């Protein structure tokens, strides 16, 4: 298999001059052989042919780069490589004594480096158009992804509000009316029992909606922010939880939600896998990063790959360009740390 760069170079070799050069090289070799095969002067012909072709290839190669600083760098680089290799060949044919080509190579190397530094200082953009477009595309995607997530977070809060003001309110009104109907049926106990059953069902439906709403956008998170919501999670957890949250300002809703669900899921895992341990939640917000740590003193040995809950969290965090790390050495507890960028 030819490497792609070799194939690309081969395509740059001019066909006719290459055939003529090849012919000349062969001819000089034959003449040399017929004239008694003395000192190998034919190598100088080969060298000349190689150099001519290599310079053409170098020139064509540098023309592939887009005009501008990038092309000048590639031109200089290509000629430096060709002339350095030429110097080595020259040295080899000329008897391979003192390795003088080192000065040629060093000279080109220094010139090349100085030129690069000079370009950098001028703030020249060495990226190709493709690279530039790709970078711009990545920037656009990052921005729109974040936008989409922000919209999603706002949407979820709207759904929670709609549930609260819509279906849940109607179910409450229904319970209330059923309760009043039940009272009016004191003389028909069997029907009153049916009505009571209906009210119990309505209450159960409302409870399910409440759990759903809490899973979508916990009201206390919306109302009071991350610290209060995490305190509430801590007091709900079946294991003792110490919460230390220092959050000066409120991060974007999407960041708050992600951090909240990280803590919720982690505490659920602690309760499930380390029911006899204590857990600590630490949250710090600095200028551009929210740092969340949930640690327990349980048995450790948590398998990051096994828990699909953790996997979901990891994806959620990754979508925000955050980072989730788990350390769970056996016998030393489990520590989950999440870093979420939230530049203001």
């Amino acid at each position, binding site marked *: 298999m030819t490497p792609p760069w070799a194939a690309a170079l081969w395509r740059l070799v001019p066909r006719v001059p290459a055939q003529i050069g090849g012919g000349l090289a062969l001819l000089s070799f034959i003449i040399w052989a017929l004239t008694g095969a003395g000192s190998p002067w034919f190598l100088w012909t080969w060298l000349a042919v190689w150099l001519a072709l290599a310079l053409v290839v170098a020139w064509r190669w540098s023309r592939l780069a887009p005009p501008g600083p990038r092309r000048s760098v590639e031109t200089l680089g290509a000629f430096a490589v060709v002339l350095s290799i030429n110097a080595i060949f020259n040295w080899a044919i000329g008897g391979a004594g003192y390795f003088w080509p080192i000065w040629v190579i060093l000279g080109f190397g220094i010139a090349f480096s100085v030129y690069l530094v000079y370009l950098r200082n001028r703030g020249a953009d060495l990226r190709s158009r493709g690279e530039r477009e790709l970078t711009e595309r990545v920037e656009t995607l990052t921005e729109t992804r974040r936008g989409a997530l922000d919209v999603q977070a706002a949407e979820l809060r709207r759904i929670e509000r709609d549930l609260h003001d819509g279906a849940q309110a109607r179910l*409450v009104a229904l319970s209330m009316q059923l309760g009043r109907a039940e009272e009016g049926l004191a003389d028909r106990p069997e029907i009153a029992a049916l009505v009571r059953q209906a009210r119990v069902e309505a209450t159960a439906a409302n409870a399910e909606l409440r759990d759903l709403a809490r899973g979508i956008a916990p*009201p206390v998170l919306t109302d009071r922010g991350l610290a209060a919501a995490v305190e509430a999670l801590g*007091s709900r957890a079946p294991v003792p939880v110490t919460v230390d949250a220092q959050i000066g300002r409120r991060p974007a809703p999407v960041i708050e939600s992600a951090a909240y669900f990280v803590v919720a899921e982690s505490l659920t895992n602690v309760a499930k896998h380390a029911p006899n341990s204590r857990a600590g939640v630490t949250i710090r917000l600095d200028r551009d990063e929210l740092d969340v740590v949930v640690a327990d003193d349980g048995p450790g040995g948590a398998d990051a790959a096994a828990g699909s809950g953790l996997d979901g969290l990891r994806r959620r965090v990754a979508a925000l360009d955050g980072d989730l790390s788990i350390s769970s050495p056996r016998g030393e507890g489990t520590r989950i740390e999440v870093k979420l960028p939230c530049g203001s």
Partner: protein
Amino acid sequence: MRVVIAEDQLLLREGLIALLREHEVEVVAQAEDGEGLLRIVGAHKPDLAIVDVRLPPTFTDEGIRAAVEARHRHPDLGVLILSQYVEPVYTAELLAGGEGGVGYLLKERVGDIPAFLDAVRRVAAGGTALDREVVAELVGERRGVEEGPLDSLSPREREVLSLMAEGRTNNAIAEALVVTPGAVEKHVSNIFGKLNLPAAADDHRRVLAVLAFLRATDAA
């Protein structure tokens, strides 16, 4: 008994007013937001304010903030919070100030009319009515590393403790557990003994003592 209501949803407000009027509870004024609540409480000096947590203009915890403020201005006012969700942090804020009664119930409890009216009367009279979900979170099983004082309670005592934290009287607890009031009294004195709580004169102080204890264990 004179009651004011702060609820922005017409359907629920009207339903609540109809229900209370059917049971000879006088609804003297109604409001749709926190500002309105403070205004009608100031104007009518009611025994009880029934308040929704989520009110305009913020639609967050406006009702809690207004209720805390109303209790601050009128320490005798009883406040009964109705909400679609329970948050212990809001209960704690409410309990922190004022002398009057405090209640925090899920809205759907209104459907159980006798229990709801009982809660309304209790809070108006200076008592407590906490939703069993709030209490459950406070009393809930805590499998701590070392034994907590709650672990020394028998299952029956734990039940009694929960009902006490909800704000029920001994008689109501006896009814709920189908035992004699005397048996409840015995459980109560056992609980106070085991938890090392001072015996309290009235039901409300008793609830406060129990809640303070539960919150303290919670924080530890």
